[in-house]
């Protein structure tokens, strides 16, 4: 919508530099990190909660849909606007408001970049744990909306475990404060409701996050396997023995080969799988734990275990993991990152099925994932220009999700449902369960203007 009155009203709330409407400007807000796109009618950059309140009220009066946007790195289409709708970009609300060490809390605006928060905390000896691979770019607002995870989330928990309070502008313009610095709050867990809601229940304008002290000591090793199944079984074995490494990441043969071509981290290219295992915490006793884990890896079939003995070696081992996605991206025009979770004891079986699906649809699968969490990322390389191949990729992805659900898991671990997996929600939930979610959405957003047509599939027969 670009009627003159509507524009005038927007102009009353936002300064010219915080309001975009031209053709060129709309063309760069039609996408996020996916292949979906839709042209918005306008883009605004709020700087205060007050502006967000006015905006939401205006949209309600004018019946214009809106969507929050962080850095636009989402992988399920969460930040794609409705046609001619409004994009609310939080990149100019990017201040760290408070670092409170005694209470171990940080208060930030939603546009703060994840790594900027970590860097600000480092001098105090603290950190914010969730570490999605996109941490250099993605915003805390986006992270919480998608409930993002990362390698260290196995030990420390995903985003929802680290968000303790919110300021949310609800769709009627009311400002709701949930949780806070205190460690407990009664009643329904409204913070938990908003985290992971992918921006469909309101606009988050302030976040109180838990911060933790940086570990005193860290050890890293790479376990090399000639058999993928054995590697997956080792993951469960380690955890069953009572160990909680900081990370338990797995890479398959295809990934290793591509990584070695591009970043050269020194991974053995003839291996079927590697596990990147890191422990952290007190230095005392850690050596012994690592030795035990290493012995366990060998007895579970690892042909070699490499312990990093210097910071440089540790960096090299991580370089392979961090460079994995990029290396895959260099090979083919597009990479589809499938994303599902399973109970970790089911990993060996599910992985077998995933590769069988790859063969069935003639697509190349390269896996690099958070094995400790049972969070699979089978990456499928393809060319989005090739409609036929793209169709096969999505078909394979749906089948992978079915396998995950059948194994007692979920269709997405950390990338969210968005547009992409909307229909796939039917694989995981019954109509009754989905109807309940629709009722929650309706209660908080009766007009259906807040990031509409995301997450929840349309149910035949209505709600």
């Amino acid at each position, binding site marked *: 919508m670009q009627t003159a009155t509507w524009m005038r009203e927007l102009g009353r709330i936002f300064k010219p530099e915080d309001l975009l409407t031209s053709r*060129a400007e709309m063309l760069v807000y039609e996408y996020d990190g996916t292949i979906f796109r839709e042209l918005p009618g306008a883009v605004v950059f709020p700087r205060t909660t007050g502006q967000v309140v006015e905006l939401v009220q205006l949209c309600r009066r004018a019946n214009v849909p809106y969507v929050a946007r962080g*850095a636009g790195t989402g992988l399920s289409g969460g930040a794609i606007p409705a046609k001619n709708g409004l994009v609310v970009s939080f990149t*100019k609300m990017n201040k760290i408001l408070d670092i409170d060490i005694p209470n171990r809390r940080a208060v930030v605006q939603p546009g703060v970049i994840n790594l900027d928060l970590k860097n600000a905390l480092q001098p105090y000896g603290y950190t914010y744990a969730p570490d999605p691979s996109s941490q250099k*770019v993605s915003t805390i607002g986006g992270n919480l909306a998608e409930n993002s995870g990362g390698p260290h989330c196995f030990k420390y928990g995903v985003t929802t475990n680290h968000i303790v309070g919110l300021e949310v502008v609800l769709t009627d313009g009311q400002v709701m404060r949930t949780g806070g610095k205190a460690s407990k709050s009664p009643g329904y867990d409204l913070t938990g409701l908003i985290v992971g809601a992918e921006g469909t229940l309101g606009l988050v304008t302030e976040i109180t996050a838990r911060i933790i002290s940086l570990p005193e000591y860290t050890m890293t090793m790479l376990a090399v396997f000639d058999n993928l199944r054995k590697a997956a079984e080792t993951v469960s074995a380690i955890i069953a023995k009572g160990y909680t490494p900081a990370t338990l990441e797995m890479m398959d043969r295809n990934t290793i080969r591509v990584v070695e071509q591009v970043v050269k981290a020194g991974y053995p290219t003839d291996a079927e799988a590697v596990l990147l295992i890191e422990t952290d915490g007190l230095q005392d006793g850690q050596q012994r734990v690592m030795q035990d884990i290493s012995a366990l890896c060998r007895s579970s079939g690892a042909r070699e275990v490499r312990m990093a003995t210097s910071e440089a070696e540790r960096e090299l081992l991580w370089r392979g993991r961090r*460079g994995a996605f*990029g290396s895959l*991206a260099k090979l083919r*025009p597009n*990479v589809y990152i499938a994303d599902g979770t399973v109970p970790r004891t089911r990993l060996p079986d599910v992985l077998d099925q995933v590769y069988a699906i790859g063969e069935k649809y003639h697509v190349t699968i390269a896996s690099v994932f958070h094995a400790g969490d049972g969070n699979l990322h089978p990456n499928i390389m393809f060319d989005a220009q090739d409609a036929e191949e793209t169709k096969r990729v999505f078909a394979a992805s749906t089948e992978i999700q079915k396998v995950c659900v059948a194994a007692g898991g979920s269709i997405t671990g950390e990338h969210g449902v968005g547009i992409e997996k909307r229909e796939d929600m039917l694989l995981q939930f019954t109509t009754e369960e989905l109807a309940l979610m629709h009722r929650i959405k309706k209660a908080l957003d009766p007009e259906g203007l807040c990031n509409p047509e995301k997450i929840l599939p349309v149910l035949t027969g209505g709600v």
Partner: protein
Amino acid sequence: MTIKGFTGPDVPVYAEIKDCIRCGMCLPTCPTYRELGQEMDSPRGRIALIKAVADGRLSLDDPDFTLHMDRCLVCRNCETVCPAGVNFSHLMEDTRSQITRSAGNGRSIQERLLRFVILGQIFPYPARLRLLGGILRLYQRSGLQALVRWSGILQRLPGHLDSAEALLPQLSKDFFLPQPEEMPPPPVYPIRRVALFSGCIQSLIFADVNRATARVLAHNGCQVMAPPLQVCCGALHSHSGETDLARDLARKNLDAFAAAAVDAIIINAAGCGAMLKEYNHLLHDDPVYAARAEEFAAKVKDINEFLADLPLVPPQGRLEWTVTYQDACHLAHAQHIREAPRQVLRSIPGLELIEMVEADYCCGSAGIYNLVQPELSQEILQRKLGHVIDTHAQVVASPNPGCALQIQSGLRQKGLSMRVMHPVEILDRAYRQPAAN
């Protein structure tokens, strides 16, 4: 407005546009995105706009298109982090060339005039450059500069004259001429023969850096020559979309260096080095020059790169200096040279190298960027200066004249006494220092 697409020569390659997977990993490294926080001024956004023109969804002449393309520094910070290996500078240079060729582009009359005079009428001609340099030198030494600055008259004139004037560096006492007289005596047993690319700005403002380079090379067993007919490398032209002018300059240089039978062509300005190493790309479809450009480009070596590859003659003198090194974009991001200059500096006894935060973040100088986008350039510079000052070093080592000027003028405005020097000047100083015992 009718939609006008890309046509004629220098059309951005569609396959390269498509290399971008829109992951957004480049956003935080892009200085213009950091400052402005909006997608149009990010690498991903710029590529999306280029794609929109290629797809017929946006007109080449759309003033917004020109605006956001021209705001790019071509600093190539985005290339370093891009997981998909997008060749951003090629896309941007081709796009700017298209904009320049399009009569209906959104650039102002003033800016076109500035481009015409600076890029078209002055830089290509060494004699005119020297003449202008001479006038400016007179202006500085006669006391007129002090008078003009005091009067504040430039702030009242149109254009960005005041920011240009503020950037004016102290010009060298003697300009450097690519002539045998400027060359140090050759070593008795030369182990290599090298040619010096003396650069246009470098010869006027940093003549002493050229002299230091020649001395350091000779000290390391090189016989140094400088072809007299060489001209500006064309980097400013190429980044600004004046691609045909850049090609003319490249051809002249290939002719100038044709007779020089040397092992390497040495350049001490990062921006020029990046350009010279891309002559093969610039002239790839030139029937006469393509092959020669290939050969030439392969021989070009940045002075730091060249020195770090040698068994460097260790300096005997001590320099008790604290130095911080600034990674010029066109060395770090364009030529992937980061370690070599640090290695050169570390070879100096007594010198302490202090790393600054974000050493490889652009300083906002970017060719003529600080003239055409003064406000944004200043904002980017302030971020850099903060990191520089935090090191409390005595000297900032910078391998590129544009950056040196920009940082120096920023320090001067803040009334700070930190000096800016080229790494090779520092090495030269160490060589000339009496041996410590």
